[in-house]
């Protein structure tokens, strides 16, 4: 099981001949992901780590099919690359790129919603179903197969938490990064619904942060879930009006505060960890 990706997922790397593309293609191959092709206009016929490079997504599609594409593409070209995948029938798009204009993100999400396409990101570390498939830039060694689903707005913090779970003997079904931008493809609810339906997942860790109302919206759904949810939120000490690294991590007009989110999550029955190292303990209690 696991959600969204597994060992059968055929992955295309767009921007495979760039520095980032090359490096992470090798990392993903090392992890065992089924990378079946890469795209780089004008570089068709080359290879990266044994993976064939195509000029266009259409070519890659014709050569053997693509289930998911991961984009290592400069921000101004992300919209075009995302549409190239979507218009050619790719059903899961992972956008690693940071600094994508919000209007481009909205255009991508509107089209994706119409066509039933799953978009992860932009500004995400990607997603991994440990032992099966990794699409993204997270370190290979910190995950273990298991029954905990992790959904996070931020990368490194989720690595830290995944690592501490692995160390405590709690492996993961799927770990997914929503992305740090204000407009991203998946919401907490979208992912929680999938974890709730996934036979392999027994509990979920939600890693949120200040800004927006994603955690508040998620709380409504969590109150209806049968599986336990442990939440940790970053940004308790952040001052209002400042973007804390992520475009979406900002308290504006009194919205998106730490306290508001904690109240909503606690009210929904989620177990809220006040400090990151409390997560494994709370999870053990909840299971």
């Amino acid at each position, binding site marked *: 099981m696991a959600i969204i990706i597994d060992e059968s997922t055929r992955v295309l790397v767009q921007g495979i001949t760039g520095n980032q593309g090359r490096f992470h293609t090798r990392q993903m191959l090392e992890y065992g992901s089924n990378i079946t092709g890469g795209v780089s206009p004008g570089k068709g016929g080359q290879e990266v780590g044994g993976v064939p490079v195509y000029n266009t997504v259409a070519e890659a599609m014709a050569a053997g099919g693509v289930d998911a594409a991961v984009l290592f593409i400069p921000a101004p070209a992300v919209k075009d690359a995302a549409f190239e995948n979507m218009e050619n029938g790719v059903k899961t798009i992972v956008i690693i790129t940071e600094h994508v204009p*919000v209007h481009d993100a909205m255009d991508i999400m*509107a089209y994706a919603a119409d066509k039933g396409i799953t978009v992860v990101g932009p500004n995400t570390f990607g997603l991994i179903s440990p032992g099966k498939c990794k699409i993204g830039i997270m370190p290979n060694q910190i995950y273990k197969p298991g029954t905990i689903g992790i959904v996070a707005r931020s990368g490194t913090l989720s690595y830290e938490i995944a690592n501490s779970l692995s160390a405590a003997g709690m492996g993961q079904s799927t770990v997914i990064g929503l992305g740090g931008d204000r407009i991203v493809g998946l919401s907490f609810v979208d992912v929680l619904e999938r974890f709730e339906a996934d036979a392999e997942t027994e509990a979920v860790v939600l890693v949120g942060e200040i800004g927006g109302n994603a955690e508040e919206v998620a709380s409504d759904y969590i109150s209806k879930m049968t599986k336990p949810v442990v939440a940790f939120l970053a940004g308790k000490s952040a001052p209002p009006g*400042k973007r804390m690294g992520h475009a979406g991590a900002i308290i504006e007009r009194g919205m998106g505060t730490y306290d508001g989110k904690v109240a909503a999550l606690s009210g929904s029955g989620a177990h809220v960890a006040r400090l*990151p190292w409390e997560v494994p303990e709370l999870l053990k209690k909840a299971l």
Partner: protein
Amino acid sequence: MKLFEYMGKEIFAHNGIKVPPGKVAAGPDEVYAIAAELGEVVLKSQVLSGGRGKAGGIKFADSPDEARKLAAELFGTDLKGFKTEALLVEKKIRIDKELYLSITLDGSARKPVLIASASGGMDIEEVPEESIVKKHIDPEVGVMPHFCREVVRRLGLAGNVAKEGADLLTKLYQVFKKYDCELVEINPLVISGEELIAADSKVNIDDEARFRYPAGTPIVEERTALEKKAHEIGVSYVELDGNIAVMANGAGITMATLDIIEHFGGKPRNFMDAGGGADSEATAQAIEILISTEPKVILVNIFGGITRCDEVARAFVRVRESAGIPVPVVIRLSGTNEDEGIAILRGIGIESYSDVREAAAKAVEIAAVS
């Protein structure tokens, strides 16, 4: 990027949205000259904070002399920490009614959302939910005539004002798209006789779209000098007012590090997300920024993934050898090449921790005693 009121109004005027006649002035004499031309005027401090009116940043003048006198006062005033460096001098307009109108992003819906209200002139947060018109805009469709008709009807506009309202909505959405806006807000939007006039403007533009701003789009630098320097070396940096300088790799982990510092009773000097996979030279430059803020201690929290712990350690060696490190450093290293990093740091006398709890507690302790 937030634009000043007068910049937003220039964009409005350029795109067919009516604004009061007016000009921007940098000193009381310029104000006098403009007032002499316009008659009764309003003087508006050009600062980026909200609540400007309540803070005394808006004045009315009946004569050029009065305008000059009030201007002299306003140029000296500090408004919520912002100094007035420019005044917008506008002809006083007849106000029959004030409305509120904005288009912004709705992250949950992943769409633009139009918010309007027949109660303008006050913060939209203070307007009761039931008198707010809120309609999402499908970016694949945009704002069509029927959308405008519905909004205008719900605002209770009639006659020529209704026609101008529908036209204004179309144009405001065009501005929102064309300038890659995160927010366009007109509050108040004034019914003045048979006309609709934007009496204020709030325009926030997406920084990430700078590569395609239309020609002539103004640029406002909101970053402090230090934040700007950090931005140039590709580091995400926010100044805070404590005494523990912080560096971590990743926005979430950096926020959490600040939270942990506060949990142990300390106060962070900054937010610094040094990103993933930076080499030792870039990291060294980031360390120098931290040092330049003269903190009592530097706390580094690295969970190595793409970031290699040995590269971070080498950055400290590099800074130590060139500029020197005049403050204590507490480092947590964990993950990729952790052992190598710890060994390198030990070589220059810096002790590392593998647990962030211990590192943070130590940093807070140092800051407290020094």
